[in-house]
């Protein structure tokens, strides 16, 4: 049990709110609709042809995982961007800061409550992801690595949300900044890499920026699951870069880089929440 009053209160409030069950229902409905309709189609084809194409089930698993990953990127800023700015809007942040609650406790409480909500979403979606095990094709370790990439993506996007919330006075503004930052992190790093390659014939060191991109680590683990062991090397060769990391190494280094960025964002948030030198 985490002894953080902010976390406890947030969990109490979110368990009462309609927002959490609504997100859970929509999230799982999208995943289930996609997985079950495709699975039914694959079984119908098998029934007609008397042949079972097992790669179809791995494909469904991959697509469900991609949808889930994209949904996490969309949901996290919405869950965390109003966390501290909301306290400012209610004028409760000042009161909290006069108590024994330190800025570290306030920020981590908010971050953990956002992550707990995502954890609930991930756990609730496990049955859908596990449909693939009915016919086989994906190992448990692959599933575990995919979940790690989900959690890493959730941590970095939640940290972005809390960071934006820590310096914005309005939650709407914090949400806009969070989404912009996520777009820059995911699309911007990839775009810069591609642009540099187009201009100079080599992505060069801009390829390193992709280590901060949660989509790149997700791609590394997905390509590994699909049996494309050299996918990251091939990507590096295509962009004519100096990085020659295997999919596993890219996943490990990328995850570490993203967690470090998250820690830095949390530290900035703590600094922004603490006693102010401004009004």
């Amino acid at each position: 049990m985490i002894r953080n009053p902010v976390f406890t209160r947030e969990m109490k409030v979110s368990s009462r709110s309609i927002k959490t069950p609504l997100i859970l229902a929509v999230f799982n409905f999208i995943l289930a609709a996609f997985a079950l309709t495709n699975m039914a189609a694959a079984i119908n084809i098998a029934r007609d042809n008397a042949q079972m194409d097992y790669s179809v089930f791995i494909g469904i698993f991959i697509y469900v995982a991609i949808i889930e990953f994209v949904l996490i990127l969309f949901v996290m800023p919405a869950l965390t961007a109003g966390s501290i700015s909301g306290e400012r809007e209610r004028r409760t942040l000042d009161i909290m800061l006069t108590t024994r609650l330190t800025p570290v406790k306030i920020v981590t409480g908010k971050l953990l409550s956002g992550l707990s909500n995502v954890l609930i979403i991930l756990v609730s979606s496990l049955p859908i992801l596990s449909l693939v095990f009915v016919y086989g094709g994906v190992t448990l370790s692959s599933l575990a690595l995919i979940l790690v990439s989900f959690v890493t993506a959730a941590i970095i996007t939640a940290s972005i949300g809390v960071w934006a919330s820590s310096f914005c006075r309005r939650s709407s503004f914090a949400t806009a900044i969070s989404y912009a930052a996520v777009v820059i992190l995911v699309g911007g790093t990839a775009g810069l890499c591609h642009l540099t390659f187009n201009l100079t014939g080599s992505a060069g060191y801009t390829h390193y920026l992709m280590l901060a991109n949660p989509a790149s680590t997700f791609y590394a683990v997905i390509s590994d699951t699909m049996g494309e062991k050299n996918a990251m090397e091939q990507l590096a060769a295509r962009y004519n870069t100096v990085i020659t990391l295997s999919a596993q190494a890219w996943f490990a280094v990328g995850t570490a880089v993203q967690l470090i960025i998250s820690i830095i964002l949390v530290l900035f948030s703590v600094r922004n929440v603490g006693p102010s030198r401004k009004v």
Partner: protein
Amino acid sequence: MLDLIDIKKTYGKTHALNGFELHLEEGSLFGLVGPNGAGKTTAIKIIAGLLVPDSGEVRIAGMSTRNSREKVQELIGYVPDSLGIYDNLTVWEYMEFFAAAYGIEGLSGRKRCENLLGQVGLEDKLEYHVDSLSRGMQQRLCLARALIHDPQLLIMDEPTSGLDPRTRFEFKEMMRELHDAGKTLLVSSHILSELSQMCTDIGIMEGGKMLLSGAMEDIMARIESSNPIRITVMDGVRDAMMIMKRNPGVKTISVSGRQFLLNFEGSREDEAALLEQLISADIPVREFVREPGSLETYFMQITDHTEEKIIMEEDFRSARDDV
């Protein structure tokens, strides 16, 4: 209990506090008064540790807020000018959260919450959502919340603003009770009359500076002696004016027909001497009286002194020209 020494705080080019000084004795009920924009909220936020001053020192119970922030926070209860409530919590949950925020949990936390809610008259509203309470009840809840860790110093920023007269009266009674129980209170307000009724000490600030502070009795005595003297004569306006002009205690004179309004600095004896001079000069004096004063008029004088002085000086010049 509380010392603010030469506090300076600027926002861009605006000096919110400019050499602000405040000294609070233990057990006092101090009223901090000033017009809007005087710097009251900035001063209170600095004391509460929410703002960092550009320079100067804040000491609470002898400890510097810079070096002993955590210890100092234990001594302070803070009621901001806004209510600061969570509309999605019940009264009990709200109190429970802030008790936990001070590390007061379990049975002792529950007892403390029950006692405080009883003290502010909300013992029958435990399961009510905070947003369903009236503003007066919400303010009482905020007071209970600020007392959860039994602070020695309670800082309240405009605590009665937005309350109806009855609730305001009840709230003031609660403040008195806290003072009687030995708490030190610092209350800011721009409604002077309500502070003058209950405070033991008062400070008047403007433009980020403390213009005047001290015990309420001393200030009221000073008000008495600083009010203008109203003199009405039946005849001999010109002679009366000459006598008044020669008196060193008379700083400015305003004339309206046969009535004079004197800004007079001096003792009761000096006042009597002036009256004697007028009577000796055969001037029929119909009225010679100190204007009845209040903290409000004094506040107006010292916070709006420049404008007032110009008006008085203009009156004085026109009266002299008439003579």
